[in-house]
Structure formats: C-alpha cells, structure tokens
C-alpha cells in the first residue's frame, strides 16, 4: 500500500510541475486535473470513500468551469517580465520552505506511527459512535453529532461566499 501511495504522490507532483511549466493553458488545466484525481485515488487507497466522493465531484465541476473559462478567453499564457524581484521572491520561498519543513519534522515526531494505535478520542468515537448516535456511517456521526459546530460553520461559510459573489457580480449598480 505504501508503494502505491508513493507512486501516486510522484504522479501528482509531476502533474503539478507540468501544469506550472506548460505554455498552453488548456493542457495546464488538464494536468491540474491529474493532481485532483490522483488525490481521489489516494483517498480510496487510504479507505476514505466519503472524502473520495466529494473530491471527485468537486474536481470534475472545477475542471468544467476552468475549461469553459479558458475556451471563452485566451489559450496562451501571458508573458511576465523577469526582473530582480524574481530572485528575491525565490530566495524568500526557499527560506520559508526550510522553516516549515523543520517545524513539521518536529511535529511529526510526537504523532503516533502510521497505521498504529489510534488516539484515545478516536478510539472512543469508533467504539461508542453507533451506540451514542444511531448512525452507522461513523464519519457522518462525527461531523453531524460529535463535531457539529464545525459543519455549521462550514455551511455558513459557503452561504456567505454565495452572498459575496452575488454582491460583487450584481447587475444593478454596474451601469455608469
């Protein structure tokens, strides 16, 4: 299983690199799709079908919208002028990456090993979930009963995003 995961990760990284480097925007979007669908396969390998369903549907919708936008506008990447700022920003990115990786390395030492004993809280959910909530799907029992505040916040964030988009794109008040 670990080998399959590593192969999928390499495929996803290659897709992301192609998406950055390609001059044609359509092929860039399609190689971005490799990342999303690769993530779906990773979720399936890790036995998380709930996440896989959401990921594959959202990825398909996003690809359709991006391809429609590209077909309507331009296929070529606009050329940006290179200057000294590029070097500074690249150096800043590398320094930030080194700091982040060292912090993550320190954090992962304290986590339990991969596939080993569960934490105390998740063990409680797995053992008592069906009894306490009556829902067989443990993921739904967690997101809608034990941790329902998070879901309420998520739904409210989506609603607020819709309101913001409608306010920005409204047709009244755009006339001059």
């Amino acid at each position, binding site marked *: 299983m670990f080998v399959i995961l590593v192969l999928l990760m390499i495929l996803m990284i290659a897709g992301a690199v192609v998406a950055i480097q390609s001059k044609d925007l359509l092929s860039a979007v399609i190689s971005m799709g490799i990342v999303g669908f690769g993530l779906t396969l990773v979720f399936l390998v890790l036995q998380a079908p709930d996440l896989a369903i959401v990921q594959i549907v959202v990825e398909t919708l996003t690809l359709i919208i991006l391809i429609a936008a590209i077909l309507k506008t331009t296929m070529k990447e606009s050329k940006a002028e290179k200057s000294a700022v590029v070097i500074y920003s690249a150096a800043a990115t590398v320094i930030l990456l080194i700091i982040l990786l060292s912090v993550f390395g320190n954090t992962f030492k304290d986590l339990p090993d991969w596939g080993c004993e569960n934490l105390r809280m998740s063990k409680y959910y797995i053992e008592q979930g069906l009894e306490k909530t*009556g829902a067989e*799907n443990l993921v739904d*029992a967690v997101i809608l009963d034990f941790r329902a505040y998070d879901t*309420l916040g998520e*739904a409210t964030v*989506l*609603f607020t995003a819709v309101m913001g988009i*409608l306010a920005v*794109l409204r047709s009244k008040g755009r006339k001059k």
Partner: protein
Amino acid sequence: MKGMTEIVKTVSKLLAGLIFFYGIYIVLFGHLTPGGGFAGGVIISGAFILLIVANGIDEEKLRGEKEKAVSLASLGIFLFWIISIIGLCMGTFFFLNFLGKGRPLNIFSGGTIPLCNIAIGIEVSAALCSIVIAFILVKKGDKK
C-alpha cells in the same frame, strides 16, 4: 447562452434525472453509507449545471432560476440553524440529538443526523447552482 449539438442535448436529458436521483440517494442514506449532505448536494447541483450547459437557456428565465436558487440556499441554512437551536430551546445544549435513535442500520435512525443531511444538501446544491448561474449571467452582461 447557446446550447450544444443535438446528441449532447438528448444524452444530457437522459442522464440528468439519473444523476439527480443518485444525489438524493447519497443525501438520504448519508448516515448509513459513504456520502452525506455535502457530496449529495454537489451531485444534485451537477445535474442542473449539466442541463444548463448542454441545453442552453435564455437570460430572463435564468434570472428567475437564480432568485429561486438563492432562496433555496437561504432555506437550507435556515433549517440547519433551526435544527441546531431546538436543543438549546429544550433547555439543554446546542445540537442536542433530540429525536430517538431508532433501530440501527434502518433509514429512520440516527436522530437529527438525516435531517441535518437534508438541510445541508438543499443548501449546498442551491448555493453551487446560484454561483454558476451568476457567472453565466455576468458574462452576458459584459458584452454590450
């Protein structure tokens, strides 16, 4: 917005109903099988977006659909908040699972979890539909 060729129109009309009912199944059985309100809502909105993109629809009709979609999204989030506040009104805590647990592995089980799934499904599907319709409409408005 212009539609596509006759083949695409026919196939999309045949498939949209199937996709719609699959989304409803994912929402209703969210507490038994993988899925839930978010996944099912996105699938339902996918059926509507397929119909809009394939068949084409004129602008006045699309404006009316946007109004309906926005009010449905508001209704969904309102239902979710109501379900969450009922527990508080009954004198206990927020998000109390006030309904009976039911028999496990049955569709009427899990207390308020199926109701929350339905509310989230309504909200997410209507919200995504209204986002796509808003983008289609602004593209038409800029042409003049």
